[in-house]
């Protein structure tokens, strides 16, 4: 009872702060300074039609590196925490009822399409909404579909690790190349900017976003794989 009362008191205090914040909130009618800079310059300098992509990949590229690192750490920690337990043995696994012929066929049909759509999303990150993070999640969803169709399905750890580390390495290499050839770390102007609005434009942004997409997809897939390998207690 006391506990609930304390919780309510805390939430009331928070609500007071929020109401105060909302009273002080004045909707902006003009872009602020940094946003103005991004809006005016990103299309000319970098050739990226999607300004959010330009910010994520180039202007705040270091932040993105940090995010990818956090995600990598999360995946690694999940793997380490789960690796401690007893791994499932094939022979000990429960007898599962067959997973329905129609779902199997449908997953055979839809998995290539989901993979293709994921690739579309991260290759076109500089033109359409979308990019590496979304595309990576969609790739992992394809893996999830396979996992749901056949619960005993396992993905090759080696393939996942190779894709993940290769894309990570290439990502950093492109970043360093930007430092050598252009203005700074992860500067995308190491490749020609190209015609605005085409696929081969915006310097190295599509390349970097594709690498991020592959890396994120591999990380999510390894998370799913590690979770699926645990044995039902």
């Amino acid at each position, binding site marked *: 009872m006391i506990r609930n009362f304390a919780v309510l008191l805390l939430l009331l205090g928070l609500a007071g702060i929020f109401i105060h914040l909302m009273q002080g909130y004045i909707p902006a009618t003009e872009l602020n300074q940094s946003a103005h800079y991004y809006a005016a310059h990103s299309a000319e300098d970098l050739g990226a039609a999607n300004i959010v992509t330009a910010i994520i990949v180039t202007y705040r590229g270091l932040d993105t590196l940090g995010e990818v690192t956090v995600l990598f750490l999360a995946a690694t920690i999940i793997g380490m925490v789960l690796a401690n337990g007893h791994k499932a043995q094939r022979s000990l696994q429960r007898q599962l009822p067959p997973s329905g012929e129609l*779902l199997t066929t449908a997953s055979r049909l839809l998995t290539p*399409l989901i993979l293709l*759509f994921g690739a579309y999303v991260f290759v076109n990150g500089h033109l359409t*909404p*979308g990019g590496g993070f979304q595309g990576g999640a969609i790739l992992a969803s394809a893996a999830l579909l396979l996992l*749901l169709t056949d619960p005993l399905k396992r993905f090759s750890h080696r393939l996942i690790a190779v894709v993940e580390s290769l894309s990570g390495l290439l990502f950093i290499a492109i970043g360093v190349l930007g430092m050598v050839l252009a203005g700074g770390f992860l500067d995308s102007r190491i490749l020609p900017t190209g015609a605005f609005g085409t696929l081969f434009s915006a310097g190295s942004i599509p390349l970097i976003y594709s690498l991020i997409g592959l890396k994120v997809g591999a990380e999510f897939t390894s998370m799913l794989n590690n979770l699926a390998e645990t044995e039902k207690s």
Partner: protein
Amino acid sequence: MVEILIMLAAGITGAAFLLALGRFVLGPSRFDRVVAFDVLTVIAITFIVLAALLENRGIYLDAALVYALLSFLGVIAIARYLEGRF
């Protein structure tokens, strides 16, 4: 004229949305809630298309594409859970 028609369509879709939401809240069994969830996802696609039309931006459709392609994954995951397979 077209505006009125679109407004009418949005209103009717909103009514359908509320009905499906009602089934979600009422639903006696878990299966009923899952069906309502499925229907609500499809109605969300309609809302996205409507928003794209109203704001006149074709790029919004990509989000609808994601839902059209991936929404059944959630339902299948829940069905697997209900079957006791995990």
